Structure formats: structure tokens, C-alpha cells
């Protein structure tokens, strides 16, 4: 039997991420960062509802395992450094 969760019940710890379900599973479009345009204001990091954007030193970018594709980061970005692209098959 192959199990997806090391736990007996719907529990989760920070190592695995605090959700036993990856919110990236239901994404229909994904944010694509243009690192050259990013002014490193960090607004997308603050606004992302899944908290999946991290500081990559040169720019900010989403972790796609948890990005749910809402597009808020595109809306909030003052530098137009993020664009949404449809996921294949959606």
C-alpha cells in the first residue's frame, strides 16, 4: 500500500508544509516572474494568500507546489514583473 501521508490522520507539520493537500493541485494558471523587472518591494510576498512567494535574492518568485493561481500577485505588483500563464490542459 502506497500512502501519501506519513500520518494516521489529517495532521501536518511544517516540514511537509502545513497542509496535507498541496494547494497548487487546483491551479489553472500560474504566475511567471520576470526577475529583471522586479524592484524587490516584497508586496507580492505580503499579499499572496497561500504565503508561497519567497525572496530569491535577485527577485521574488512563487513556489508552484502551493501557488493556487489566484493572480493577486499580478494585481498587486507595481512593476508589472509578474504575468499569469494558463496551465496546460486547463
Amino acid at each position, binding site marked *: *500500500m502506497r*500512502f*501519501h*501521508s506519513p*500520518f*494516521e*490522520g*489529517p*495532521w*501536518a*507539520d*511544517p516540514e511537509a508544509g*502545513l*497542509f*496535507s*493537500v498541496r494547494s497548487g*493541485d487546483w491551479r489553472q494558471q500560474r504566475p511567471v516572474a520576470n526577475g529583471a523587472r522586479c524592484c524587490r518591494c516584497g508586496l507580492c510576498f505580503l499579499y499572496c494568500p497561500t504565503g508561497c512567494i519567497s525572496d530569491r535574492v535577485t527577485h521574488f518568485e512563487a513556489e508552484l507546489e502551493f501557488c493556487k493561481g489566484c493572480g493577486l500577485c499580478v494585481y498587486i505588483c507595481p512593476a508589472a514583473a509578474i504575468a499569469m500563464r494558463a496551465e496546460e490542459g486547463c
Partner: protein
Amino acid sequence: MAAPAYLPQGAQPADGLAPRLLDGNKAAAYGVLLCRPDLIAAYPITPQTPLLEQLYKFKADGRLTAETVEVEGENSALSAALGVTVAGGRAFTATSSMGLTFMYDAYLFASGTRVPVVMVIAMREQTAPTTVSCGQQDLMMVKEGGWVQLVCESCQEILDSILVAYRLAEDPQVQLPVNVCYEGYYLSHLSEPVTVPAQEAVDRFLLPVRDKRRPVLGTEHPMTFGTYVVGELYAEYRYKHCQAMERAGGMLDAIDGEFRAALGRPYGGAVEAYRAEDAEFLMVTMGSAAGTLKVVVDELRKEGIAAGLARVRMFRPLPARELLGLMRGKRAVGVVDRSVSFGWNRGHLFIDVKAVAQDLEPRIPVVSFIGGLAGTDLRRDLLAGAARTTWERGRGRAGAEVIWLGLE
């Protein structure tokens, strides 16, 4: 020396303590006290209220160190107990009837999230018609809720079952919430001699909760309990829950052995067999009526009628294998229920026993007897009548599958 009549067969009081007169609620309270809980959160409801009063008295006397929370309702009571349990503590709550209904979502959350909390159900009829009398209908409303459910026959068994319930719930192989159920008034309010074990003996049987290895919530190691789950993961947790239920069933027998070693009283595991081995037919029931049925079995035996009894101690998970073993070779089975299933129009335990009896070859008649609703007595004459009817069915006499005792 033979064990006194109020103790289960073969019992030897290991601690040598003299029994005292306790009703079921007080016996439960002593059980809880001996388990050293961290939290008691409950809302009073008849007939469970005196259990809480006794616990608060322990607290006022300084004997109970647990936090006590007077919540605004049953839903909060169980929710508070769940919070403490996932944080690694040992929590207790208790309810009856409509209080149980009022905590239904928390009840399902407890089992689906695999939280090893222990809750007493002082069993009472379910509204409507409105009554506060004894019945097993409240338990039946949650029988598929995913909890382990133990049903007691005596006040001694209530105390002992609380200890067993924590031992079972917190076992890493189980990790499930456990109900200890006993009938309102017949057990909750009537007194019997009860031996209260010594704390050291209980400590040997039930390790402090901090020694247990299970994921716990804390600032050192943050966790989420009850996360959102879809698809395959959902099925996986359901599968694991069912596996844990299976293990809990087998584990009760082993724990019964540990309990006997530590505290001197054996209960026979998930099903107590009373003169069942050589019986021609078998009566099946659970709860306080089993005591009267034992008397009936003895009386019929004196007449040369080979009656036997199977008392179901663990209602969920259903001890199907044990019941099948006891029914094999019998000519008929009669099931006495203090509850009704609308739809089947039979007793709830009957439905289970009938389903298990499908595996018997050849098929035998299984009869449902409904009685004792709303605190009416399951009298000796009524139960003797039920036993005689079952005996006659085994000898080929035809009749209805369901009989309402005292009504028809």
C-alpha cells in the same frame, strides 16, 4: 476463595481494598480521577450531571489537579477536550442524549482527526417524545461516528472501563476516541459495591500521557490537526481509520489481560460469554439488562433448557468474529435492544447480529426483542418470555422477527 457476586467471574481483588457503595456516575468520576486528566470540560445534562458534580467536588477537595472548564454548551465541551488532547494532554468529557446531538460535528471531527479523547455517554432516550429517561437511543444515533464504543453492565465495570478507554485510545496502534457508555438511572444513579483501585495500581496499567509517542501540537513543533483534504488522501485517511478500528477490536482482549494482571478483574474481552459454550440457543444484549438475563439463563438451566448469553461490551468496532464463534452451533439467537432503528423497525444490535449470522451454515432464526424504552424495566418475566420464545424458534416454531416486550 470465590469472588463476591458483584465482581465479574474469576475476579480476585488484587489490591485488597474494600469495596464501597457507589452509583455509576460516582464510579465514573473515580475512574477519571485515577486517570490523572489534564482537563475536564463538560456541560451538565441529565442523567450525566452527578458525574460532573463529583468531579468538581474532587477538584474543590484538592484531589483532582485537572483544569475544569465550565463551557457554554456540549459542542464547546468536546472541542476544548480535543484541543487539549492534540496538545498532548489527557482530557475528559461526558454527555447524554440531546447534549450528544449538540456536539455532533465535534464528535465526527474527533474520530476523523484521530484524537484519543475519552467521553462518557450516560445513555438516555433521544427526543421526541421528550423524556429524560434511560434508553440506548442516543448511542445509536452516533454508532457510525467512528468512535470506539464500550458499553458497561455494572458500576464496577464503568470505573474499570474508563481506565481501559484511555489505555486503548492512546495506544499508538489505535489513536481513536473512545466512548464509555452506561444506561441512565439503572447504572448512573443506582448504587453497587465498587472497588476503587489504588492509584499505584492504575499508574502501572495506564502510563502518564506524556510517555506516549504521538504527534502533538506545541510551540516547539507546530502542527495542524484536521487539515483540508481532497481525493486520494481522503480515502487514505478513511482506510487508516478503518484499519485502526480493526486493531482496536483485537487490542481490547490484550488490554483485558493487562488489566487483569494489574487490577485483578477480567471482563472477557469484547464479548462476555455467559454459559454460552454448551447452550442450545443464545441471547445477545448489551448494558445493564445483561444482569437480569444472566438470572434468566440460570433459571432456565434449572428447568433443563440450555440457555446462554453473549453480552456485547464493545459495540464499535463490532466484535463480529467473537459473535460468530458464539452463535455457531446454536439453534436460534434472540437479541434484546433498548433502542429502535427506524427503517429496519428492529433493534440496532439486532441488525448487527443478523448481519453476522449470515455467515452461519445452516441459517438460524434471529429474533429482535425491543424493550426497556424510556426507563421501563426490562423485568425478569419479560426477558424470560423473550428467552423462551427464542428457544421455541430454535425448535421450529414460526413467528414474527420483531417483538416489542410488554407491548405485544
